């Protein structure tokens, strides 16, 4: 059986959070790989175009633009792009706007350990 490939783009302006996600994803299972990392919204869009990831794990609070704005741009270009909004502070308004945009899931940062499962769930086979 050929393991399914699931390539994730990690977008977060906090260096420790990116590192934590990388370690957690790497430790989780074979098949889950890190396509790239980005520290800002503009960097995220560039990396996304370059690496064409299966899933984008997107922080919401970033210096240049917020995660929803980045998601809107990506989904406008590729409506079937799988995006998980991964934020430390998720209020109902943000979740509603994310769902309206077509973001697949919203995950609070304290549930970092659920990221591998979410990647599988919202990955290519989904």
């Amino acid at each position, binding site marked *: 059986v050929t393991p399914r490939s699931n390539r994730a783009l990690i977008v977060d*302006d*906090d260096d*420790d*959070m990116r*590192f*934590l996600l990388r*370690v*957690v994803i790497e*430790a989780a299972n074979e098949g889950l790989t890190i396509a790239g990392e980005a520290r*800002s919204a503009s960097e995220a869009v560039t990396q996304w175009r370059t690496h064409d990831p299966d899933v984008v794990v997107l922080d919401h*609070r*970033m*210096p*240049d633009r917020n995660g929803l704005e980045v998601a809107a741009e990506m989904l406008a270009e590729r409506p079937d792009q799988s995006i998980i909004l991964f*934020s*430390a*502070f998720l*209020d109902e308004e943000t979740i509603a706007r994310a769902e309206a945009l077509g973001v697949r899931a919203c995950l*609070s*940062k*304290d549930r*970092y*350990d659920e990221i591998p499962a979410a990647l599988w769930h919202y990955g290519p086979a989904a």
Partner: protein
Amino acid sequence: VALRTRSLRPRRLSPALALALIAVALSATAGVFAQRAADHHDLEVERTRDASQVARLEAVLAAALSTTREVALEAAHDGFSEAATRAIRDPNPLAFVLSRGSTSERVVAQGERDASLLAVADAPATSEAVRAAIADANVHVVAPVDLQGEPAVVFVAPGYPSGTPNDVATRRTANPAVVLGIIRVDDLRNPDGLPPLLPGTDVRIRTAEGAFGPDVTQPVLTSDVRVGGEVWRIAVGRSPSDRPIIGFVILLVGLGVAALGSFVIRRHELERRRVEQEVDVRSRQLHLIASTGTALQQSLDLAELLPAFAVNVTDEFDLTALSVVLSDDNGQMLEVFRHGRSSPDDASCTFDLRRGWRTVGRLDAHCAQPLDGVSRQSLQAVADLLAIAVTNSQLYEREQQAVTRLSELDALKNAFLSTVSHELRTATTAVQGFADLLSEHWDTTPDERRHDMAKRIRRQSGSLRHLVDDLLDYARLEAERLRVSPRQVNLSDIVESVTDSFSPLVSSHHLVVHAEPGLQAWADPIAVERILANLLSNAGKYAPAGSTVTVTAAEHDGAARLSVRDEGPGIPEAERRRVFVRFYRLDNPQTIRTHGAGIGLAILHDFAARSGATVTIDDAPGGGALVHVDFPTAPVAALIGEHA
């Protein structure tokens, strides 16, 4: 429009004029009736009186005739002297000329009039009468004759010594005595011893020879009287000038009363109109005041109120221009609205906009004619209403500003909560995540990675500690329980210690510390720690990784200066005062990227203020922020929140 109905009222007949017309009509009518009544009354009275007048005249004439006849008979029998003496002695108004027909013997009974009496006797009419009297032996009358320019009556009587001859020829030859009794008409009309004629009554006598006496235009009584052989027509009445004028007098009095009444009523009418006009003006002004009060309550927006207000007031008070001048926050008077255009010749008047004890502005009114007292009072009332509206508007504006500030503060607080939540969750997630990984994959994790994770846990813990410290300080600040206890300290030692302790906050940066050895300051070590920790935290957040953060402690102008310099974007000059406001964060991408609650600099500022230190923000040479905190080197009196 409803206020300007004065000109539309129907014009009424002036009461004064009406009364004058009525008075004139009444007095004219009364005059006519009075005149007629007077005339009627006089006529009745005069008829009676004039009848007696005529009777009296008849009697006088008869007496004169009789007396003349008697004197003639005496003269014939007793001689002229006897007769003359008796004639003069008798009380009668007659003068006598005694003569004998065929001789030249003549005696004049009243010597003082001799010449004139003789002239009368010699007059042709008299001579004619003498001949006639001798011929018919009767008394003849000649009238009028001229007696010294006055009309007179002459009675001619013959006297025969031995009886009256029967035939004319004998009579003529008998040589009788002839007596002329002469009487002036005035004496005839008003003989001595008799009551005079009524005033205004005249008598005119017409004889065969002519008429004498004043002209009587309105005879009351006309009577024919036989005098000797003649018939005289006697008219008694009033002369034209003596006509009663009671009617005219009443008319004149009536006119006078009418004029006086008219004058009084006219004055009263004018006064009434003046009062009515004043009441009208007052009423309109009161209406304006009432409507102004209502209008001014309809809005709290002066920009909406003032134009309508100024137009109304200018129109109603006939102003040429009206300015509204209001006091600004600094007490400066500024013209905020002006309506109309004034000329240099205009009168001007100023009304203070008073609200309680203070003046919130003024109204400058310009008008062609100076305002009267009533208008000034009304305008002051309007100004007082405007003052209330202005005050309410200003209060409303301040309230709106306060609401806006509170709203902004609320937004800042919400942002603060969001940020704090984000910060706390990020840090705790990182700490927990790395700790979980280490504990679960300790054996399979290479040493280098384990070491890396431990460093990250330490850094995130430092951030967490700093954030918790900030929140605790903030809570104390809110509760006014933040206390500092300054004392003499070695600032350099504290700086080095704190820098070492909080170096994880700038772990991605190159930290340089320059502390002047033994630098003394009057400060609370905890305050110094919180101040320096916040400055380091800010430098760590805003300055790019790898750049240099420099901490300096040195003496500066008598103060112990602690400075932190970074190579970040710096703080714009316009923002330097606001960054010390709680929850305030610079509105730029750099701020959003960084993780801060927006209370660090506020806490720093409060610690500095309570320590007697001053904080200044400057531009670092070559860019970046440079913050100085100058601590005093000796005790400072009355510090905020100082804890003894």
